[in-house]
């Protein structure tokens, strides 16, 4: 049973709104814990968008890694440095207006490209379970990047421990 198109649109709009609102909270909240919570909201919204795109595996990985691990890391870091939050400092630095202009200009440029380009879109139905194929391709076509990423993770693990150790 395929989901009716209307429901797909509803799901898309809700998840897109969640992602964008979460992002806005994350960059504007003065309290860093709230910024981190906004970040989590944004992660969840993007995971929902992956579900709408029928990339379930990526969606679940997104929840597992971003929501379950990275956001916990961020929360811990905020907690360990929280003596600073008491000080009354503006959350933005002096160049925030310039940053806003840059972001807006970039957004309008991207908007023009996204809507103006004639994308060669193929309407495809996803048939069957893609996850075995994903595993197979990770072990064959993309073996070298896969190994490189594993090595990177190991290096990051060791590096993080060395840097953060007292």
């Amino acid at each position, binding site marked *: 049973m395929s989901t009716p*198109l209307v429901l797909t*649109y509803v799901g*898309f709009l809700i998840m*897109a709104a969640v*992602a*964008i609102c979460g*992002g*806005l909270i*994350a*960059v504007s909240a003065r309290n860093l814990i709230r*910024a981190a919570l906004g*970040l989590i909201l*944004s992660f969840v919204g*993007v995971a929902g*968008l992956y579900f709408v*795109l029928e*990339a379930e595996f*990526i969606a679940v*990985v*997104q929840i597992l*890694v*971003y929501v379950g691990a990275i956001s916990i*890391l*961020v929360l811990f*870091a905020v907690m360990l*440095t929280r003596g*600073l939050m008491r000080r009354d*400092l503006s*959350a*933005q*630095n002096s160049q925030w207006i*310039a*940053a806003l202009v*840059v*972001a*807006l200009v*970039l*957004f309008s440029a*991207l908007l023009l*490209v996204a809507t103006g380009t004639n*994308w*060669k*879109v*193929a*309407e*495809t139905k996803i048939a069957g379970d*893609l996850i075995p194929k*994903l595993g197979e*391709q990770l072990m064959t076509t*993309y073996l070298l*990047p*896969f190994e490189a*990423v594993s090595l*990177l*993770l190991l290096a*990051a693990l060791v*590096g*993080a421990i060395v*840097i953060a150790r*007292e």
Partner: protein
Amino acid sequence: MIPLPFYLVIAAALFCVGLYGALARRNAIAILIGIELMLNAVNLNLVAFWRYIKPASPTMDLAGQVFALFVVTLAAAEAAIGLALVIAIYRSRDTVNVEDVDLMKW
């Protein structure tokens, strides 16, 4: 199906929000949060392009998903190292304000 540009616009908005966060915030952790948002937007684009542009065939190429996975891994590594650095700086200099950590700047 939902038209592809919808996703692209959402991803662009998310990227620009993240960019603003990374450029305009004082706190190093907040800058990392902005960078994570940007990485997320990139991932959304990768998956959307995989879903719409790649033609379906028995040997469907999952490049978009595979690289989205790699980006997730990279983001995890980046967050771990970045936050470890922030904590190390906080320990030695008692600040996480990036404007105070400019010894190496001209």
